[in-house]
């Protein structure tokens, strides 16, 4: 869940139409109209990326009537949610966005409901609208687990692609660096334990069965 309480506003006098804001907006809420940045208020989630990167200080954040974005995780979809998370090597309850507290199951739910890109996931869950830095890989991993491999926004700097995970580090690399403080195998074991640990739902199910 993410409370949206800010809106980006462009100062048209200062805007030079340089497109930096367009390239960094995580929801593709900005376009150029008459050589000036134009923000789609409906799509803006108040993340501040445009305001923080505008080279001309032409964007400021304005208070807006707060509203909440987020998905409701449905019991009826939970088998599918678990399947996507398992394939992506996440526990469904694992937090994948530290700023918004969004969990893997919420991203999986958004995918089930039709999100096909990181931009659509941000719009539906709020993830990737806080720091805009740390959660791109989990989102791409969950999309990939659902069989979706999106293309980065054309000409944008929003994101470029997936990177290596603990499960893909070659054995030769793991062996080469294991004596200088990198604990690849032990961390992999930890991540696997987390991914397979019981969720609140499975604990409840077990207890109901008893």
């Amino acid at each position, binding site marked *: 869940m*993410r409370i949206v309480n800010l809106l980006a506003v462009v100062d048209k006098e200062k805007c030079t139409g340089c497109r930096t804001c367009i390239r960094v907006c995580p929801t593709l809420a900005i376009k150029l109209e008459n050589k000036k940045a134009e923000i789609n208020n409906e799509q803006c989630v108040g993340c501040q990326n445009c305001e*923080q990167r505008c080279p001309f200080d032409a964007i400021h954040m304005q208070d807006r009537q707060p509203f909440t974005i987020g998905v409701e995780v449905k019991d009826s979809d939970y088998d599918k949610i678990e399947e996507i998370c398992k394939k992506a090597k996440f526990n469904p*309850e694992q937090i994948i966005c530290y700023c918004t507290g969004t969990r893997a199951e919420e991203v999986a739910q958004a995918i089930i409901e039709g999100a096909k890109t990181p931009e659509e996931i941000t719009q539906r869950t709020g993830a990737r609208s*806080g720091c805009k830095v740390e959660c791109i890989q989990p989102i791409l991993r969950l999309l990939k687990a659902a069989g979706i491999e999106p293309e980065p926004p054309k000409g944008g700097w929003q994101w470029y692609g997936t990177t290596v995970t603990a499960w893909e580090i070659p054995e030769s690399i793991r062996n080469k660096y294991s004596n200088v403080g990198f604990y690849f195998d*032990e961390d992999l074991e930890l991540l696997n334990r987390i991914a397979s640990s019981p969720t609140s739902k499975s604990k409840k199910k077990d207890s109901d069965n008893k």
Partner: protein
Amino acid sequence: MREPIKPISPKKSQYGIDPALLKTRVSDLPGMTSLPLKELFPDLPDVIYPGDNGIESIKKATEKALDKVDMSFIKPEHSVNILASHHGFTLLGGEAYAEMIKTIKDVIERKTGCKNIRLRAGVGLRFRETEEYIKRFGLDEYFNGKAIGVAPVDEGIPIETEIGTLYGIKKVYDADWIVHAHNSDVREVHFHRQVDRAVKPFGMSYARIETRSTYHQNLGPRAANFTARAIFDSPFVQKKFAFACFLTALPNGISGVDADNNLYDLNERITKIGCRYYGKMMTLFGQIDECIAALDFPAPVVYVFSGGVIYANFVGANTDLYDLDNVPLPSYTWYTESFYGKDGKPLIEDIPPLNPAIKMCIHNYAWTGYPCAFFSEHIPTVIVGREQAELFNRDPQNINYAKHAVIAEDTEDAMNFAYRATGTKKVVIFDGAPGGLNVSEEMAEFLLKKAPEVSERVEEELLPKWLRQRGITI
């Protein structure tokens, strides 16, 4: 008891409240005193800064360190990017780091005749932070308009590494040569675990979001910093790397400047310093049985300093952050945070809790720009001043931080509430007091009593183990 040490002054920044709103520093309250770190650990090396010779000592130390560095490959017609990070500007007010950077530029010019020298200053999660420092320390003028802040959402460049493609910030690498200007302060030891500390910025402040997300989400808590090594060792970066120049930071100040064409040699030296001296401070903090933690420093909640240790490390001081064998997961890292389930409990049983010695946190002054709701969810927190709480409410990284805290009108009320509610008079203040710690008298007494046995234990038992785990022999 001694007078408190003057804390680091509040700074005007878009990430913090107006300094005029900060009416009282916690160290000004009755019952507070200071402890020089050399009194706790007499073996701490002497520092050159802060010191009698002021900032001039940094200039001289930088020049001396760079004397032995080979710059013969830099030609007058080449371009050089000096790479800096926000972190250095938070050490002792930032002036020492700015001076080292200016001196590096001067020495390169003098030794090579190269004039096209730029500053590229990376950030954490506050994308304009180094822009503020560039202005504050006159670096823009010093670099003839060629000083810029760079952020992880700026245009990227793919870097082929032995673990596949990772991504750097394009402007970091848009010169013939790069110079890595950093410091040995351990800071986020919960993340890097003092493994390749000197290399970390290549996977962080010089890197794009894809790489940073790999670090914090894809590899695991003790393998994370390999992203930095993978990038640094790539042919692309090796072709550009000229040398590194570091402030040698200790918990009590700056002891000198170290420079080397070989980053791993420099890394080994700072690993020994980090484990020995910061290891002692952190082990001492781990002895604290109960306390009130007061935040009072111009940096985000996690990065406020006391005795050279950041609050994020104090939150994990109930575990040995340096022990790679027995502590897979410190009490606080982003991996740890992500492993808490919907019931507010860890998903597996052996995840250590946040430091139970912290009975309450008084947030007198700290900045936004780093997700901190996890702390206020798990540690009773009092924010001083409605304006400060409101600032957090407007920060997309901290929309839930103030939800879990209470607000006090002023510092004195907040501390009185903390004393009554917790029943302890032991206070540790994270206000960056140079050369020492500002604490309550009760805490000073406690730490003085514990320090000798901590020092002995680190030297005899812990340090050899920590270095062995990192493949370093003494």
